[in-house]
């Protein structure tokens, strides 16, 4: 029971970092980046390679994140800008990139499932009275809290954050402000890619790394966005917790219908509160 709760929280922590970046860039650019799952997987594979050459997990996280951020930058700069303004086409571009990237990754890293080794320091459980917590889970939770706090501060305490929040609230107004905003948008997109990359490495240590993980992760992230509401930081936290819990309890008791169960809260939200738990709109 405790183990399942801890698993759920760990999954929630991972999903939160993946979803919050996607959610903010979606709210800002109005582009659902369907390559987000592929970016996650790319980060994981890069991390795996770095790990096997250098055996430094921290380096793997950093390089995985940076490489993915670079990929996101290329995607934004060379492809998305060509179809700027047509949200549907932008989304289709990200989908085609996801398809291409998925196959490229199979070519480079092969199709067999793998897992990223992580330092001995984080191996094994930590025993606190009756509660046994894997050290890696604790690390992931702390990692998510640190990243969440940093993001929150970026959003609420800085000028860029102000622009981002304004952009989420009133896209047209901010879009009309000029070219500088473009830069903020691109940065947000790249930041989301960076977050996907680092979570790829961390998540790749906790879960498995294999083809098809990209779509699975993307599906979870989209579920969280719809449940929590577009552009909502708090909504992403709550939705990630709900999804993490359903994921771990579902995997334990009804593995056949785990994804089906995860859809239940989303279905309820769509019926009773189409804007998501904390969302502003479903346009």
């Amino acid at each position, binding site marked *: 029971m405790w183990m399942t709760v801890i698993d759920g929280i760990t999954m929630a922590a991972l999903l939160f970092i993946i979803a919050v970046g996607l959610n903010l860039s979606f709210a800002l650019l109005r582009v*659902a980046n369907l390559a987000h799952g592929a970016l996650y997987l790319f980060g994981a594979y890069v991390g795996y390679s770095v790990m096997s050459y250098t055996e430094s997990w921290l380096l793997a996280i950093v390089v995985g994140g940076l490489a993915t951020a670079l990929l996101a930058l290329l995607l934004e700069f060379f492809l998305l800008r*060509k179809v700027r303004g047509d949200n549907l086409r932008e989304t289709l*571009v990200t*989908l085609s990139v996801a398809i291409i990237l998925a196959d490229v990754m199979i*070519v480079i890293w092969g199709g067999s499932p793998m897992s990223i080794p992580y330092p001995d320091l984080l191996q094994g459980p930590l025993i606190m009275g009756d509660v046994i917590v894997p050290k890696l889970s604790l690390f992931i939770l702390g990692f998510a809290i640190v990243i969440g706090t940093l993001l929150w501060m970026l959003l609420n305490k800085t000028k860029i954050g102000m622009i981002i929040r304004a952009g989420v609230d009133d896209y047209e107004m901010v879009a009309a402000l000029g070219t500088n905003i473009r830069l903020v948008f691109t940065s947000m997109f790249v930041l989301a890619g960076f977050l996907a990359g680092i979570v790829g490495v961390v998540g790749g240590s906790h879960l498995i790394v294999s083809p098809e993980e990209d779509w699975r992760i993307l*599906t979870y992230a989209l579920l969280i966005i719809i449940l929590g509401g577009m552009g909502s930081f708090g909504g992403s936290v709550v939705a990630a917790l709900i999804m993490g819990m359903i994921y771990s309890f579902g995997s334990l008791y009804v593995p056949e*219908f785990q994804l089906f169960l995860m859809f239940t809260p*989303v279905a309820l939200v769509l019926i009773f509160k*189409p804007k998501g738990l904390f969302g502003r709109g479903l346009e």
Partner: protein
Amino acid sequence: MNQISKWIIYTIVALFLLAVPFIMSEFFTTMMVRVLYFSLMAVAFAFLASQIGLVSLAIPAFLGLSGYTIAILETREIMFFPYSAMAAIVVVLFVSAVFGIFANRSKGIYFIMLTLILGQIIWAVARQWASVTNGVNGLIGISTPDAMQFNVFGANVGFYYVILFTFVLIVWAVLALTRSSFGMKLKGIRESESRMIMLGYRVSRLKWVAFVISSLVAGIAGVFFVYFVGVMHPSAIDLDSSAMVLIAGIFGGVYSIIGAVLGMSIVQTLEVVLNAYTQRYLIIIGIMFLLVVIYAPKGLMGLIYKNKYMKSLYDKWYKGRKDS
């Protein structure tokens, strides 16, 4: 072009299609069948995309639903054709009726996201509910019903004729729908949902009906799919399949149903040709898709309708003879 030469062309096309199993190689006939059932999915996709402007990634899910229903019923010897096929259609209608309620609550990119999720749910159940669907191993050994196996002039052309006939009928019906009053209302929703509501239309009911119709077409594709291939495997309904349907739709041009059929023929041909050289043909198809989205968003039909004769055919179908 006058009436007579038009009819001559139509007759030649029809005769050629009927003669395919006799004059072409077996490989080509097999390929035709494959293109036909995949094209039904493309038609289902293009119906939603062209009429209401909704891009669905859940089309193969309905192929999977009907395919799996038949596969499960027949491998467990619970029901056989035609009852199994009827049961499959009932399942498709029921699930699409439920999914349609949710899908209706979204539009644009949200609709893509939601249908992606819905498709993934069906896929995940197919993969994980191993006690019923046999998981990643899939269900094998579904045989083609006798009704689809008849011979003509000693050649076993039954399946090809049945699917060709069904295909023509469905494409005609869908095309007729798109120019009916109902189709006009759907186009109204595509252009301005708020105005349609203000004019008093029950927009969500119209969208729901369209969603169910599209799912039905995909479900019928599933019946042919499972009887032709004889195997039902989760990979038939994964996201790559959704993407393939979407790519075909975009290739042909999002606003055209005929275009979607053309697009699917191209994608399938490419897949077979490229498959001979590499397993990773999706990279090439993906890149082509990317180029089409960026540089030719109207797809093939955009080019074809530049031809005056084709354009006038189109206008006549959708708008009636020019009057006034």
